[in-house]
């Protein structure tokens, strides 16, 4: 305990310039600084990826400002309150997902939106936040490692929204949400025999999923991933062109605004899902490693906050949010570089788009909240 207190002392008095202010406003300046650095780099890249369209950059900067404010607001919510309201959030979220399936708005072949007066709203984005909170809240109250009954119950909690979202269909989001829930379970000390069993069950499960649940376009993406040259002008185009873009960047890239793959429209989705290819083409391996360093700093801070959380709930929630952020990065980079099938996951904080930015920064708001709301008794209950 003495050691832990020491760590806390350093954290409170060593990092923030005026520790009192950080605690009072519930802001983690270290995390904020890393995030701002990453977002700035993202805007810089977006300017090139959109073909020097300043209006897009300004719009993205606006989303960013709104999302930062949201993050700071979320940080004000004490974790205890989150834990108490978790099941209500969960119930509300599932209701919204059901509503999407019943009265949702269709666009591009998927029914993902609820039409509200004035704007469209995508409930699955909210579930991204609700899922880890719910799971952390549920498991924090159980004995760890969780019993079989608790494991089954938590899997059910994960399965309901995941299935609802997969039906929209939105495979990418349902995988991300599913994994954010499973991460809580894994962090909570899921027994190794459960892990081994589920790995064994995964093989038949994938078989069933492929033959009975996956849509044709989803299957095609996987097939294309396995052999992009089979349809170079059609579904293989994205992977081939992004591989070319990345590879042609070389060690130090073609230079800012000079990427030919992106500027001559060979690279599709260059400002959304495939923006990493623009970075790789224009700044080369050095640029990519620089981005990875920024991500590593954010992840490191996330892990630091997780390890230092003073409640089990905070620990599980912070861990899940951090790991999910990593999954975002991994899936996007993997898919853009041809390691994974194209599943439509944006590069976090860098790809164009307001919604995912809002969700991500709100998640970091929880991290800040966990880090700055502390009971100095050092006891969780």
């Amino acid at each position, binding site marked *: 305990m003495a050691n832990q207190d020491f760590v806390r002392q350093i954290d409170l008095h060593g990092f923030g310039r005026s520790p009192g202010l950080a605690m009072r406003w519930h802001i983690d300046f270290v995390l904020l600084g890393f995030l701002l650095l990453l977002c700035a780099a993202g805007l810089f890249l977006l300017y090139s990826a959109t073909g020097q369209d300043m209006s897009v950059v300004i719009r993205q900067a606006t989303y960013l400002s709104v999302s930062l404010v949201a993050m700071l607001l979320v940080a004000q919510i004490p974790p205890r309150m989150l834990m108490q309201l978790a099941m209500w959030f969960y119930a509300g979220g599932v209701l919204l997902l059901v509503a999407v399936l019943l009265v949702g708005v269709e666009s591009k072949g998927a029914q993902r939106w609820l039409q509200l007066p004035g704007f469209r709203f995508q409930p699955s984005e909210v579930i991204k936040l609700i899922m880890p909170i719910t799971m952390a809240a549920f498991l924090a*109250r*159980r*004995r*760890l*490692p969780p019993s079989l009954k608790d494991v089954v119950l938590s899997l059910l909690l994960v399965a309901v929204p995941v299935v609802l979202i997969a039906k929209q269909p939105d495979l990418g989001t349902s995988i991300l949400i599913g994994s954010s829930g499973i*991460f809580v379970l*894994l*962090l*909570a*000390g899921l027994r190794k025999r459960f892990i081994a069993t589920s790995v064994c069950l995964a093989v038949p499960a994938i078989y069933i999923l492929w033959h009975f649940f996956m849509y044709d376009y989803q299957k095609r993406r996987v097939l294309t991933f396995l052999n992009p040259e089979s349809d170079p002008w059609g579904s293989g185009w994205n992977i081939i*062109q992004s*591989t*070319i*873009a*990345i*590879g*042609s*960047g*070389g*060690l130090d890239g073609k230079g800012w605004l000079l990427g*030919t*793959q992106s500027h*001559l*429209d*060979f690279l599709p989705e260059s400002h959304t899902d495939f923006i990493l290819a623009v970075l*790789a083409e224009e700044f*080369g*391996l050095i640029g*990519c*490693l620089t981005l*990875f360093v920024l991500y*590593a700093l954010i*992840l490191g801070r996330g*892990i630091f906050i*997780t*390890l230092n959380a003073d409640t*089990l709930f905070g*620990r*599980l929630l912070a*861990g899940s949010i951090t*790991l999910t952020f*990593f999954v975002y990065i*991994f899936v996007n*980079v*993997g898919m853009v*570089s*041809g*390691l994974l099938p194209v599943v439509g996951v944006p590069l976090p904080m860098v790809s164009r788009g307001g919604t995912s930015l809002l969700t991500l920064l709100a998640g970091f708001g929880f991290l800040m909240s966990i880090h700055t709301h502390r009971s100095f008794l050092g*006891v*969780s*209950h």
Partner: protein
Amino acid sequence: MPQDTLKDHGAEKRLVNIRIWVAVALMALLGMGLISRLFYLQVIRYKELSTQSDDNRLLVQPIPPTRGLIYDTNGKLLAMNTPSHILSIVREQTRDLEGLLNSINKLVPLSEGERQRFHQRLGRRRPFEAVPLKFDLTDEEIAHITVNLFRLPGVDINAELIRKYPEGELFAHSVGYVGRINDQDLKRLDPTIYSGTHTTGKIGVERSYESILLGTPGYQEVETNARGRVLRVLKKSNPVPGQDINLFLDIDLQETAIKAIGDRRGALVAMDPKTGGVLAMVSNPSFDPNLFVTGIDSKTFNALNTDIERPLYNRASLGEYPPASTVKPVMGLALLANDLVTPDEKIFDKGWFQLPGSDHRFRNWKRSGHGWVNLSKAISVSNDTYFYIQAGKLGIDNLHDFASQFGFGHRTGIDIREERPGLLPSREWKQGIYGETWYPGETVIAIIGQGYMLATPLQLVESTALIANRGRYVQPRLVKEDIPAVQGEFWGDDIETDRAEDTDAMNWELIISAMEDVVHHREGTAHWSIGRGLKYRMAAKTGTAQVVSIAQGEEYDAEQLKEFERDHSLFIAFAPIEDPQIAVAVILENSKGASRVAREVTDAYLLPRLAQTSEEDT
């Protein structure tokens, strides 16, 4: 919460922390995986992918050379290039072709013929070649397409020079035409030289001088975007235009000849015996070569191709006709050169001739006979019996060898590909074709240019020029410039250049004076038709061929059959005798009057020249 009492916070915290460190290790591992992947792409495969990236955006585009122009002898244009805006489609850049055609149709109406020809061209295109859909776009049509280009993938408008033949039908057979490169052309053409060119010479001078007219393509390296639009030009090497060529052909003379022939089927070749330059080359009826330049639709083509008057056929050099009596001057020379007759030697013509031991009568054209006939008269009145009698002495071997020196039986080597050799029969030839020996009776009809013997109007004019030149051979040619690369192809070793020059000068004058009598003596066969009022001395020979038309094997109705059974009239001539400036051969199928056609042409050619000469003299 009942569980709370059982919870061991310290143990749970340790458990979770272990899991977190495991997760950190996993993230590090996966992160290394991503970095390795990027390293693999950006360092190990850098060269390959960098090349692919350049291949994506860089395109080497050929710039077609401007085709050489073709002029007549006076520098008037026979073939030119006019700019035309063409709407074309690159098939490989479109996904839904029919949908695309329909959207284009809404902007610029497409006719059925245009669609059909487009699909024809589409079947014969090279990969990534822009296939023309519509030619000669108006400014308005260009505007309609241009503003919509962004939603018409693979569509482009480019200005291209297309061939134009301002004289239309006049020179369709001699100048020929260019047409779109098809599969057959691709087998013989070098695709790199033709990479930007869509047409190639198909017949006539356009075909034979293709390599000269074409020029050398240039190239430009351009940067394109993913939709194939050119964004900027990086490198450029300019094309070298094709060489212009001048022909001996004379528009005015050609027009005169066509007018004189009128609506009759026939051919005329006029040649300058000094140079061999072809002054006029007519095959009537003709067609508009402009139809073929951008691709002719199958309906129009079939109409032309199945027309019983065969307008597509170049009668002047492909048409093989029995030369009939027009060969008599050559045969007369053969008799003299072989010392078989003397100029004064006479035979008595009672109207027919019989071979010893045969009942068959070879009849003179004049049934009552011409009485006493020597060689000179035999030519001027075109007596057949005289030649029948001499046939036995001459024999087929001498006949063949001598006539061969005048160009019969082989191509003249004129500088277009559309030429046939005619037929000069021989023992070997008959044995080869029929497996039979040669009969003396066949020599009897061969000597008056009937039977197996066939000649083209071009061969007739060549042999006439040889007589005009007293044995000096000249090569018939359309193009004035010496272009050995092309002409060598035509003037190979098989073309004899040392013709009948060693023939005695006296013999030439005797034959020429007999030919003069054909026109200028009151008994001459052409005297009454053209001999009177002639302002210069002309040597000539008439001919009448009793044959079926060259358009054999077609189905005609009875009335037409009658017409096609009538005799052909032939005429060869050169003038003026003392200084030959023009030689001409005419054939009119199933019609009389070849001599009058010839005179109109020689008049048109000579009268202005003679007037000029006499002015200079005074």
